[in-house]
């Protein structure tokens, strides 16, 4: 095998407003290699590969393709160099047929397009790689698995020899995953290199030749697959070097306050995002939901908060069926929620801190005198929240997006906690926060728990679950696979359930 790397990225850095997505990353791919790029959400995998695909421009660093320094200033340039990327959200034109999508933008096609001809060409390459698909069908009539095949064919048609796939298996059924891997092996045998962006360890072990692990924008390890096992990879991927302080877990959970039974919830695309989940939540406990993002957590929390309708099943609050209650009635009952999108959903971007402080209580009598909002009362309410939750800001009349991430989260949490919730739902409350800010958020949550509030937390970092939660429910593909007592489990156990490879006997 040719031992010169086909791709060599050196010292790549890229920052977006507020985040360093890639920090001095070096990355190499050899011909015929299936290279897994492993890491948690937000580790910078997609950004790095988007740079390689010419979509983003790096702030610094160099890229060599087949030994030559190349400036990949556009996707076109990347494609000319043989680099093709398949994004998590497919870049297909829904109203076009399969064949039209495949030849789109390619110069191999005649100016006058004959459907029979492009369909025949499509059929030919799809035979060669075992990717069966009807070329005359419109893309919006295909399943996600089939759409992925179209994406692969599109790249093969252009003669790409480096194929980047972003989380390719999340949309596939287990059977489709097998087929995909088959195709990838055929491609690799023909000398094509494949970069697989993923966080699923079992898949890495099954298909990859080489692994690079990213964490928080940096490379934390890379090696041939023979020298690795799932344990090593899990630790590289999720563990922090910092030894976490064991939280005061002297919680004393009381009785059940929320009982969820066989709840089924629809996702945005009409799919079933959550399948018949059942669990209960007790007063004075923190239950964490662990799982890779996109496995139904968002839909579950929204359904509990009354922002999304449940298809079937029941939600009982203190023995009362509340499935048909809207968001306002649930707030009135004491069910509060901190959404995952802080700005845009939890807070209104261009409105002031003062206006935002009443977003979920603006209709309450206490803020009115007659017909009008009483801004004196609202201002003093805002000031109280600012003081009580130590929110640092220069002026509460300024738009809320002037605040830092930590202060946004404190405002959001403070606003919800101030309504004296009896059930608090919070999604990714520390995402993107630095250590000190995260500490502050945890203190708040623990204090709330000690007051007897039932808390449901969606978390991504497994360490955090061990720091703060009493129980953990692990979600995978819309199911709660297991509910575990945190004291009686381990990172490895949770990690393996959340990536779908429950190790037998652990």
């Amino acid at each position, binding site marked *: 095998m040719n031992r010169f790397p086909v791709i060599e990225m050196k010292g790549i850095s890229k920052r977006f407003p507020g985040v360093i997505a890639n920090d001095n990353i070096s990355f190499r791919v050899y011909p015929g290699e299936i290279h897994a790029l492993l890491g948690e959400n937000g580790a910078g995998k997609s950004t790095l590969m988007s740079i390689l695909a010419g979509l983003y421009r790096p702030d610094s*660093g160099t890229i060599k393709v087949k030994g030559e320094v190349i400036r990949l200033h556009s996707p076109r340039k990347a494609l000319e160099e043989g680099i093709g990327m398949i994004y998590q959200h497919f870049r297909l034109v829904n109203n076009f047929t399969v064949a039209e999508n495949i030849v789109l933008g390619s110069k191999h096609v005649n100016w006058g397009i004959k459907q029979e001809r492009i369909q025949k060409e499509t059929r030919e390459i799809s035979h060669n790689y075992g990717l069966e698909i009807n070329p005359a069908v419109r893309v919006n009539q295909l399943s996600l698995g089939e759409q992925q095949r179209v994406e692969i064919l599109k790249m093969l048609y252009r003669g790409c020899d480096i194929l980047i796939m972003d989380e390719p298996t999340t949309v596939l059924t287990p059977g489709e995953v097998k087929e995909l891997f088959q195709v990838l092996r055929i491609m690799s045998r023909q000398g094509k290199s494949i970069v697989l962006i993923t966080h699923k360890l079992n898949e890495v072990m099954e298909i990859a030749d080489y692994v690079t692990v990213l964490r928080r924008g940096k490379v934390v390890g890379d090696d041939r697959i023979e020298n690795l096992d799932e344990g090593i990879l899990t630790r590289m991927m999720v563990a922090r070097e910092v030894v976490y302080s064991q939280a005061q877990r002297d919680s004393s959970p009381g009785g059940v306050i929320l009982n969820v039974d066989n709840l089924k919830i629809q996702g945005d695309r009409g799919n079933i995002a959550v399948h018949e989940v059942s669990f209960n939540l007790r007063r004075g406990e923190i239950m964490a939901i662990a799982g890779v993002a996109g496995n139904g957590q968002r839909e579950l929390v929204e359904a509990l908060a009354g922002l999304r309708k449940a298809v079937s099943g029941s939600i009982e609050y203190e023995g009362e069926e509340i499935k048909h209650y809207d968001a306002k009635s649930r*707030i009135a009952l004491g069910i509060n929620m901190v959404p995952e999108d802080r700005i845009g959903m*939890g807070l209104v971007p261009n409105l002031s801190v003062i206006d935002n402080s009443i977003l979920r209580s603006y209709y309450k009598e206490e803020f009115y005198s007659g017909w009008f*909002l009483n801004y004196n009362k609202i201002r003093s309410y805002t000031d109280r929240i600012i003081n009580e939750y130590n929110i640092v800001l220069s002026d509460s009349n300024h738009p809320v997006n002037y605040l830092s991430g930590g202060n946004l989260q404190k405002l959001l949490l403070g606003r919800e906690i101030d309504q004296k919730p009896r059930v608090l739902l919070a999604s990714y409350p520390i995402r993107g926060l630095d250590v000190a800010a995260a500490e502050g958020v945890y203190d708040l949550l623990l204090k709330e728990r000690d007051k007897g509030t039932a808390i449901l937390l969606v978390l991504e970092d497994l360490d955090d679950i061990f720091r703060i939660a009493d129980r953990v429910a692990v979600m995978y593909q819309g199911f709660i696979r297991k509910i575990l007592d945190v004291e009686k489990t381990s990172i490895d156990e949770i990690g393996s359930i959340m990536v779908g490879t429950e190790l037998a006997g652990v």
Partner: protein
Amino acid sequence: MLKLKLIRRENESTMARLIVPVLSIIMAFGCGWIFLALSGYLPAVVFAKMFNGALGSPYAISETIVKAVPLMVAGLAISLAFRMKLWNIGAEGQIYMGAFAASGMALALGNGSPYVIIPIMMIAAFAAGALWGLVPGLLKAYWQVNETIITLMLNYVAIYWVDYLVFGPWKDPNSMGFPLTPIFSPAAQLPTWGDSRVHLGLLLAGIIAIVFYLVVQYTRWGYEVRVMGESSQAAKYAGMNVAKNIMLVMMVSGGIAGIAGMIEVAGITHRLQQGVSPGYGYTAIIVAWLARLNPFAIIIVAFLFGALLVGGFAVQIVGVSFSITQILQGTVLFFLLAGEIFLRYRLVLAREEAV
């Protein structure tokens, strides 16, 4: 290699928010200057004439105010819809419908107490305009039908409807063939200020602006409008009913524009006639956009655009076409739109790195 790059700002720039509109006006007049010079006019003379015609005498100022009033009211109407990101460009038609309904009331009620007739005309005008706004609002709320096209198409329907009336059933038998209705009774005419044509409509516009401000800033509904205009996700999270509010906002927006139509017939023409609005509904879009949808800024900007209209008539004396005002209006808007990118992006001169 040095290259200009646009970098997205994290926060909208407050400075740019003020500078961009002012600079837009200045640059538009700069372009107008060059354009006039190229066309063989003396720009200084033309602009001086324009200024004098619009603001140079008490009479000129009174005429400017007369033109500014419908722009103020229609601008306020439009800004309410635009706040919710509803592209109501149907103010023109809503003005016509308001004028139609108010005229219908005035003609039907004949003489009587102005304290009865004027409010009835206003209510009728509001209702007719509101209906003209509700149709696209309803279609948008329930079926996501494009409100821009519907409101625009309804403009033509309203204009032809008024044309039909003034050429047909409502035509004054004594008009010698002109498309006019009979003149309203004095009770259906708005009182004027002294000898000028400045009428009660100015006060009404001011009241609407204040009410508008109070409602949007200090009521529960206004709060909902502000939240929904920024983010429908947040509105849902706060438990607001988005579809209901789309209809309500379109209705109120149309209704206010309808009142602009009533003010024109009751305050200026005193009868319904063809071309009641010479495009106020369109100019008001520029006014609202330039004022960044702020009600008090709309009052000021409407005055400026009223001056531009009156000044446009004045320059005809030196042989310049009235069309110069439209050229200036369009150019102001071009610069404003082009300048808005600097609110959201920073322009940076960056060295392209070898990548």
